[in-house]
């Protein structure tokens, strides 16, 4: 039931402003892709084009090789979960769940069986007779998902389904949501602006920047091997600095504001390195000596901001230790966690 979804050269403008710009992306059948980016990066526009609610200016959308670009939403067989849920207020939970089956004239036992199955999977059994106004936010969210899954969509689109929930609730809803989605084995595109959701929920992650695809890959690829400084900073901000790699034995080595760093790979020459907080530590007697500028307390850790010749950098301090602004400390680098950006970064300098 799950489709291979190809997006080819898709562009869409609103009043001269390019919302989506020449996006090429393939969603493999049965995989979950998270579509992530800052607000205004074109995530929702791309999703609406896939749903058939917006016509792209150019480009094509293919489901299993079949061009659906010109098909209206009702003939695409796509499941869509809105951020606001958009539940039908005049229908019961059961009627909301079965809506897609009812308009397809799927009646009787088949309808009954599917509604029961979804109600069980989503924990809605006791609520079937209620109206959307009579259930909680998390329950509405599950009904919205059930409504989109009922007719076994070839592609499930989720538009920030967790954004309207309070963070404590979002945690448990997220788990329930993805357990239910996994049962369906459909192709999923999950739009989010939350970087940790993007990494933990996707088999693949697509990062959008100003309507264009910045990078597409596995979560590990995007986090560990970002192709641009933008991608690197999107998933985990760190100090970006220019350095020169020189051969040292069978490896390369670079002189950085945080001392010499062994590089895992690469040729001699100019490189750009990203030092995220997790690549740095305050333990040990080695490392560059730095002056602490400010400290923010975050409970499970403190973030220590310090000055380097290349700009401000951050290192995490374990909860037991107290550090004050103005203190001088040694910061050690774990070379295995330093990120090397490719030399050919178009957003160079970012």
């Amino acid at each position: 039931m799950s489709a291979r979804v190809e997006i080819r050269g898709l562009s869409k403008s609103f009043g001269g402003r390019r919302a989506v710009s020449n996006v090429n992306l393939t969603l493999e059948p049965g995989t979950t892709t998270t579509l992530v980016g800052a607000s205004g990066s074109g995530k929702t526009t791309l999703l609406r084009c896939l749903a058939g609610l917006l016509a792209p200016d150019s480009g094509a959308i293919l489901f299993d090789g079949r061009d659906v670009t010109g098909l209206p939403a009702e003939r695409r067989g796509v499941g869509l979960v809105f951020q606001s849920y958009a539940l039908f207020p005049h229908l019961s939970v059961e009627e909301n769940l079965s809506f897609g089956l009812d308009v397809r004239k799927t009646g009787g036992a088949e309808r009954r069986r599917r509604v029961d199955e979804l109600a069980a999977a989503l924990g809605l059994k006791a609520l079937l007779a209620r109206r959307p106004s009579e259930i909680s936010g998390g329950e509405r969210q599950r009904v919205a998902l059930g409504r989109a899954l009922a007719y076994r969509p070839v592609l499930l689109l989720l538009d920030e389904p967790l954004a309207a929930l309070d963070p404590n609730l979002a945690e448990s809803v997220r788990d329930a949501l993805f357990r239910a989605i996994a049962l369906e084995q459909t192709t999923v595109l999950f739009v989010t602006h939350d970087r940790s959701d993007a990494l933990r929920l996707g088999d693949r992650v697509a990062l959008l920047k100003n309507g264009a695809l910045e990078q597409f890959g596995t979560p590990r690829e995007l986090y560990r091997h970002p192709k641009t400084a933008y991608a690197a900073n999107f998933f985990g901000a760190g100090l970006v600095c220019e350095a020169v790699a020189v051969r040292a034995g069978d490896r390369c080595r670079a002189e950085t504001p945080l001392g010499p760093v062994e590089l895992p790979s690469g040729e001699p020459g100019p490189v750009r390195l990203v030092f995220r907080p997790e690549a740095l530590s305050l333990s040990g007697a080695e490392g560059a000596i730095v002056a602490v500028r400010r400290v923010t307390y975050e409970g499970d850790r403190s973030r220590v901001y310090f000055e380097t010749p290349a700009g401000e950098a951050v290192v995490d301090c374990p909860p037991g230790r107290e550090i004050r602004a103005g203190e001088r400390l040694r910061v050690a680098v774990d070379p295995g966690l330093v990120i090397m950006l490719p030399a050919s970064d178009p957003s160079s300098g970012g």
Partner: protein
Amino acid sequence: MPDRRASLVSGALLALLLAVVAAPLAVVVAGSVVDPRLLGLSSETWIGASRPAGWFSYVLELYGRQLGRSAVLASITVALCFALGFPAAYGLAARRGRLAASLRIAFDAPLAVPGLAVAIGLLLAYPGGRASGITLAAGHLLYALPFFVRAAGNALSSGGLPELEEAAAAAGASRWQRLRRIVLPVARPGILAGGLMAFTISWGEFNVSFLLATPTTQTYPSALYLTYTTNSFPVAAAATTLFLAAALPALWLLQHVAAGEAAQFGEAA
């Protein structure tokens, strides 16, 4: 306690307003059933008690035909509002551009034009339609339609209805299924309110009707005017009471429908 004082003052003002508005109505209704001499309004002989239904039967004898005509005209106006106004409101609800904004203003335009001017315009434009009452119906429609389109349009664009329609489309509902299963049920209170408003506006319309009517198309408000100019006070009061008897239930229903809407869907959308 400034809050308390403010609420006392506003309460007193409200009571005053109600008294000012309600007093004429109370006098008219009382005048149709009570000897007007008791109200100090007339020196005529009170014959109400000598007739089975007081002055009402007399008024119905005199103006029953106009009363029926007004009811028919108001029904036609409502029907035309549904037939013409609903598609217009539905079409406009989802659109934003400049053209849609201009069309919305165009629908409101008749409200800004004095009835006299509308009537004369209609007479000059469609001289042939006067005898059959077509011009009259057109005049009523011109005044009722803006209210209908506005009420229906608000219902069709609020409560997240455009998004509900998208959700229905994504779930596989055709345009017709969306209209029947989602749009009409969700917007129903607003559409009904628009219809009731159109009814009360047509029922009470005087300016255009007075000018456009012929003796065979005269409506009840025009007859009402005649009762005041040519008949005694009790007859006019009875005629007015009959007039209100039809308008007030419509107003009450209007309130009821609006309250029902809030109760039915709660805060979920």
